[in-house]
């Protein structure tokens, strides 16, 4: 009995502190495309293009709750470094208006630029000691392909989203989004530059919803 009461409590307790500002959680798994090759390093991802479709390798997905949410006064600055002639991280989801810095950690020049409709910019050539660290504010939603004019093979992706509720899955495709407002929304899973899956979700405060893609 005591044990059952304890279990009950433990089930209820988490709801209460979070539920007080009223929040919901979504968790589940995104069916990721099969990786073509085994990952060499656990933490290294790169962007690959196959038939003009950009995705991470090994595959990852970004799950986000689509919708319009109030914009905060300021957003934290994010960072994509250039290290060993790759972008780290290779895939970065950010909220619209986020400033991203691009520090160069290699010993060579880099020239980060993008021709993507969501953001066109060209940081020019710079060395690791460039100060201030070259940065861009991404104020338009969409996928931004990062390239280096000097190192043609380098690719990076910034997924600029309106929503603040997003998360990158693990390599197995598992995700968990918490602190979501209750309501009727569309949950989307960005899998690659051409593939975004979506599911309607009804979020209720204090509830954990399980959603699997597809």
């Amino acid at each position, binding site marked *: 009995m005591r044990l059952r009461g304890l279990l009950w409590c433990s089930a209820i307790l988490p709801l209460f502190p979070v539920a007080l500002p009223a929040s919901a959680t979504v968790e589940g798994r995104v069916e990721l495309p099969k990786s073509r090759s085994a990952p060499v390093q656990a933490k290294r991802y790169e962007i690959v293009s*196959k038939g*003009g479709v950009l995705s991470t390798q090994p595959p990852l997905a970004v799950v986000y709750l689509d919708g319009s949410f109030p914009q905060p006064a300021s957003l934290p600055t994010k960072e994509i470094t250039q290290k060993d002639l790759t972008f780290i991280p290779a895939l970065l989801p950010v909220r619209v208006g986020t400033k991203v810095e691009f520090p160069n950690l290699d010993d060579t020049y880099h020239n980060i*630029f*993008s*021709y*993507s409709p969501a953001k*066109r910019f060209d940081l020019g050539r710079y060395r690791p000691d460039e100060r201030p660290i070259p940065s861009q504010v991404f104020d338009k939603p969409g996928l931004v*392909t990062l390239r*280096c004019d000097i190192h043609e*093979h380098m690719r990076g992706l910034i997924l600029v989203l309106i929503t603040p509720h997003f998360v990158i899955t693990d390599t197995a495709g598992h995700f968990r989004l918490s602190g979501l407002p209750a309501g009727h929304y569309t949950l989307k899973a960005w899998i690659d530059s051409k593939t975004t899956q979506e599911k309607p979700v009804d979020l209720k405060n204090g509830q954990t919803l399980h959603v699997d893609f597809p």
Partner: protein
Amino acid sequence: MSAPGQARDKDVASFRTRLFTAMIVIVAAVTVLGLYLAQRKVTADAERNLQENFRAELSSLHKLEELRHAALADRCNALAGKSRIHAAIEDNAIDLLYPSAKDELRDLMEGEEPPPEQAAQSLHATFYRFLDGSGAVLKPPNPKEVGQLGRKAEAQLSLTKLPKTQQIGYVQEKISTDGGAVAEVLAVPIFSTDTGNVISALVVGFKPFQPRQSDAGAGMKSGIWVNRQLHLPSLPKSAEAFLSEKIANAVANSDRAENNFRVNVDGAPQLLFYKRLNPGSLFPAAYEICVYPLADSMAQLQRLRWQIGGAGAFLLLGGFIASHFVALRFSAPVKKLALDSEENRARRRRAEVALASAAEELERSTRYSADASHQLKSPVTVLRVGLESLLAREDFKPEVYEEFSALLHQTHRLTGVIDDLLLLSRMDAGHLQIASTPVNLSQLVNEWLDDLGALPDSPDVKIEKEFPAGLFVAGEKRYTSLIVQNLLENARKYNRPGGRIRVSAHSNGSDVVLTIGNNGRTIPRGENIFERFHHNAMPSAASGHGIGLNLARELARLHGGDLCLVRSENDWTEFEVRFPAADGVNAVA
């Protein structure tokens, strides 16, 4: 000449005509064949020369194209490797394509246009454009930087799809009423380094290769035919339009990429070559055109025709003269042969007649002498026997015995003449056979000389002998002896008192020569002493019956030797008789 003579002349004339006709036919055939072969060779040579010229022209064009292709392929591979180009195409930032490529292609467009002689080494482009995924031209944001083109000209750069390989095209750069200029364009695919797909194409326009007139053959004109329009600036407009139509027909009617045909431009014959410049290209078909005036080769042909025709005529004339002479030469022997044969026939007839009469005469004379000797012999014998029986009686006076003795001597003479005549008649009839044995001539002569000295009526003559003993001749002893006797008796008979007889003999290997000379009256020149029954014109005490010499000669000849008078002058007459020597018996003197 008679009828056969005229027929012969006719034959000779017809032979000559036939010979001449044959020669004319042969010469004419050779001339025609020569003309035909020479004309064919000249035409083929001219065509081959022009074709080689055309090929050389094309090869310099192709060399330039290859150079441009290689350079542009490199350029495009480099471009495809550029992040910005990729970004512009893949990220749908087409407006940024030209600015991104500007730096890469700057050197292609910038700089002074090279002089024509360096054009082949230069990559100087006049414009460039990118094609989008569907093959359409991407509008440049600033046409000045990529080479300005008219709307129509730019439209020609579009392709129905993106090319997988380099494509050559020719576009009319400035379309105007005067034909405008033609630019060579190269479309080079840009492959995505990620996917390997063709994501775009770069189209670069160059000034078309202009052949230098000095390189080309005399009067050669070259140009390009594209979009059913000929661009051959050195030709007048009307001719250009005319040729353009001709080429269009030729191209439409033949699926060959390369060919040539003859055309008349303003009345002058020309040989026109064409070759597809961009086989298999997605761009409209363009042809390299070369027009060569044929005036030179035609003139050469004409000259050659005259030369060969002249040579043929000359040959014909020479043939005519030669055949005339040959016919003459050939017919002359024929004619002569005909004449000769007629003459020969007549001569033979005459000879035959003569032979027949001679044979008849001979037979008659042979028969006569045989009959005569036989008829004479028996009465002489009767006479001699009668005389001898009379001499045997002793009741006559001594002078009567002397008379009888003289008469008996005459009968002996008569018998000798009859024997001689008999022998002659046998010889004439061809019945006399010689049984040849070695005969000792020396001994024979000695015996006869002894007899000569013993004769009762022998005059006072001196005998000189000069011959070796044991000279042998081949013959029958009886007749050999007769010859020697005849000659020695003559030498004694016709000698003068106190004269001499010289007998000499020697062997010269095959023959034995016996020479008998004597003093006395000489034989006049021209007197045929060897004739039968010959009598010397001058009567003398000594005389024969006129057949001795004849018989001796006939006998000598029958033996294979001869008898002749060597000389008769200055109180000296010399006969020489040759006998065949007996084999291997005589020593050579």
